[in-house]
């Protein structure tokens, strides 16, 4: 596969995952704010901005923030920018992906372009939840059903799960870094539920641990659960699988280093114990996960995409 094509596929995966993540954060937080005091809502917005590594340039009112995160084409993290970037990448590899995938992504893009803030403001649930997230899930379903599960598919998956592992680690980090507001048990409860819902993991959590919400269990679930598609461990497994598959096509030992990096991340999550991680400091552990994701990304590029010519002459 051409390196340029791999690059485009990887970023389609990442941008769509990012779109879904941002859309869900907006959806969940707008819903939770209905139950909270204005002060708590303000704190929630600050936290949102930290999650997304983005700082709103102006007076942080809900309307303006939602608009900037959804429709602002000058904000590279807005939904319209992310979907647009995914589509632009797809347009450049149209002969590689299935027609059905292209049509779905195109439809999704046009849907966001046509939407207005007015519509979103009155029916955020309709727009963000049903419109965008379902649209992206449909794209993933179409991808799994119509694209050969070969190298092309693995590049899409690699982008998707590196983005997911990284975003989930940040989410956990921001939540656990704050002093627990024991004074207000109700607000506290909503915060933790909010975290689970931001990962669509609330129902799955309840199935494992009942609705008894405890921070340590949440950390265990979102980090180390082997079966939830939203856990960091699950993402690390998928990253390792896709990298194995991609490296299998290369000659010689070129893929060895990046395979080792992916295997290390996977092993640390496979064999990790939540009590030990908490005792050693969750924040440090999460920082290491983010750093390893970054390393994998850099090495994937050095090995498969933007390698120096001299290293690749056979």
């Amino acid at each position, binding site marked *: 596969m051409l390196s340029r094509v791999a690059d485009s596929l990887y970023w389609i995966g990442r941008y769509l995952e990012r779109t879904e993540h941002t859309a869900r954060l907006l959806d969940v937080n707008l819903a939770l704010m209905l139950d909270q005091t204005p002060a708590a809502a303000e704190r929630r917005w600050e936290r949102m901005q930290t999650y997304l590594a983005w700082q709103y340039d102006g007076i942080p009112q809900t309307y303006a923030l939602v608009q900037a995160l959804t429709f602002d084409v000058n904000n590279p993290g807005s939904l319209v920018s992310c979907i647009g970037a995914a589509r632009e990448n797809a347009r450049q590899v149209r002969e590689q992906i299935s027609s059905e995938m292209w049509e779905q992504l195109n439809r999704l893009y046009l849907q966001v372009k046509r939407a207005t803030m007015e519509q979103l403001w009155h029916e955020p649930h309709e727009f963000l939840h049903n419109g965008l997230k379902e649209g992206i899930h449909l794209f993933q379903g179409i991808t799994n059903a119509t694209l050969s599960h070969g190298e092309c598919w693995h590049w899409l998956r690699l982008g998707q799960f590196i983005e997911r592992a990284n975003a989930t680690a940040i989410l956990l980090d921001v939540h656990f870094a704050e002093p627990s507001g024991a004074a207000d048990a109700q607000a506290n409860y909503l915060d933790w539920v909010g975290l689970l819902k931001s990962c669509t993991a609330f129902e799955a959590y309840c199935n494992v641990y009942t609705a008894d919400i405890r921070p340590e269990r949440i950390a265990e679930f979102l980090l180390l659960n082997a079966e939830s598609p939203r856990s960091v461990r699950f993402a690390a497994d998928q990253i390792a699988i896709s990298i194995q598959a991609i490296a299998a096509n290369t000659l010689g030992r070129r893929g060895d280093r990046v395979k080792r990096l992916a295997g290390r991340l996977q092993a640390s999550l496979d064999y990790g114990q939540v009590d030990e991680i908490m005792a050693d400091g969750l924040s440090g552990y999460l920082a290491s996960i983010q750093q390893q994701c970054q390393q994998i990304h850099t090495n994937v590029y050095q090995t498969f995409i933007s390698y120096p010519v001299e290293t*690749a002459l056979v």
Partner: protein
Amino acid sequence: MPDVAPFRQYQLETAYDELLLNPNTPRPHYRLLAERLRELPPDELARRQQAADLAFLNQGITFTVYGRDEGTERIFPYDLLPRILTAKEWDTIERGLAQRVTALNLFLRDIYHEETILKAGIVPRELVYSCRHFSRQMRGVSVPRDRYISIVGTDLIRLPSGQFAVLEDNLRVPSGVSYMLANRLVMKRVFPQLFASYGVRSIDHYGQALLATLRSLAPQGRSDPTIVLLTPGVFNSAYYEHTFLARQMGVELVEGRDLIVHDNVVYMRTTAGLRRVDVIYRRVDDEFIDPLAFRHDSMLGVAGLLNAYRAGNVALANALGTGVADDKAIYAYVPAMIKFYLDQDPILPNVETFLLSDDRQRQHVLHNLDSLVVKAVGESGGYDMLIGPHSTLEQRAQFRDRIIANPRNYIAQPTLALSKAPCFIDGQLEARHVDLRPYILFGDQISIVPGGLTRVALRRGSLVVNSSQGGGSKDTWVLY
């Protein structure tokens, strides 16, 4: 045609009519179509036209209109009714094109090597050397199998007599073949019974034939050659066609930045390392293809490609420097080339052409600008062109100045009545001017898929069929 729907608006004029033999009788090979059209309920045609348009839109069969808005995608208008050619008509076209392409290929080899035709004084030397597309870099370079032009799209028109004539040879990067194939797919979906009852020759094997042609150009010793299609990228107007052909052939679609030249060998950058490339079907113009040899500001090309090509390590289709032979002034000499190289008379005639570098011919043209068509020699796509009878006094004055300033850059031809074919317009059938572009492949031998792109000037009375200027297209049927 009898005064029945949907033929009420259909009028026979002086131009050759593809449908009608005389005002009341269709030509024999159109009879079945005419009958079927009369039987259809009134709204049925409109319904099928909608179905066809939707099919194009959904498949994203579009071309890009250059403008401000980062490239706007449009569908190429499709006319519902087929243009039908008999086996006999096609036979003449096929033989004529094979003869012409053979001679043009010999001409290209000759002017870049021995120059016999220039020494014999058949084609004026200064005409060749002054051509913008003449490429000094190609002097003495031997190209694989001596194939300069492997992929050709020749524009034919039908004269009032019914005879086909050549209007233009496109020997650089002719486009439109994807529309020929897409039109056929949609046609089969929209008019299945009519299509089945007619006995139409298949064109579906074009992708395979193109692949075989490219494969035949592979450098010696490369028994399983890697073939790629080089596109200028997603903003090119024909990008859809590039993706379509790459998929049809099962080859990689590459951009300049995907290719690297190392020690005069071309590689593409893949996830599995560098892979050697043997044949490049390039859809990038000569001047942009290698920033070291041609335009140094080109971002679309591959640095060092010309040297790899000269070293014989990679084949290009078409070769570089082929534009000299489709220069509109050189065009006038093609019948003489056929005589010179093949000792044959041309099967398909040229259109009468005045060379404006010649004093006498120029005087004649300047006196008759209002009845002639003037074209720039190196342009395509209907740009920089004057259609005398449809022009204003001001436009003619402008062209007069341009001609006098640079006579070598222009030629003139009589205003031709292109033949007319029935088109479905606003719920009625109306006659519109059409041309025909068959696609010729020259690998081991010459092969032409039976058909081509029939382009239609959709505006009433217009003679311009180019997609960039409001043209559309039709499916073209060649009968057994």
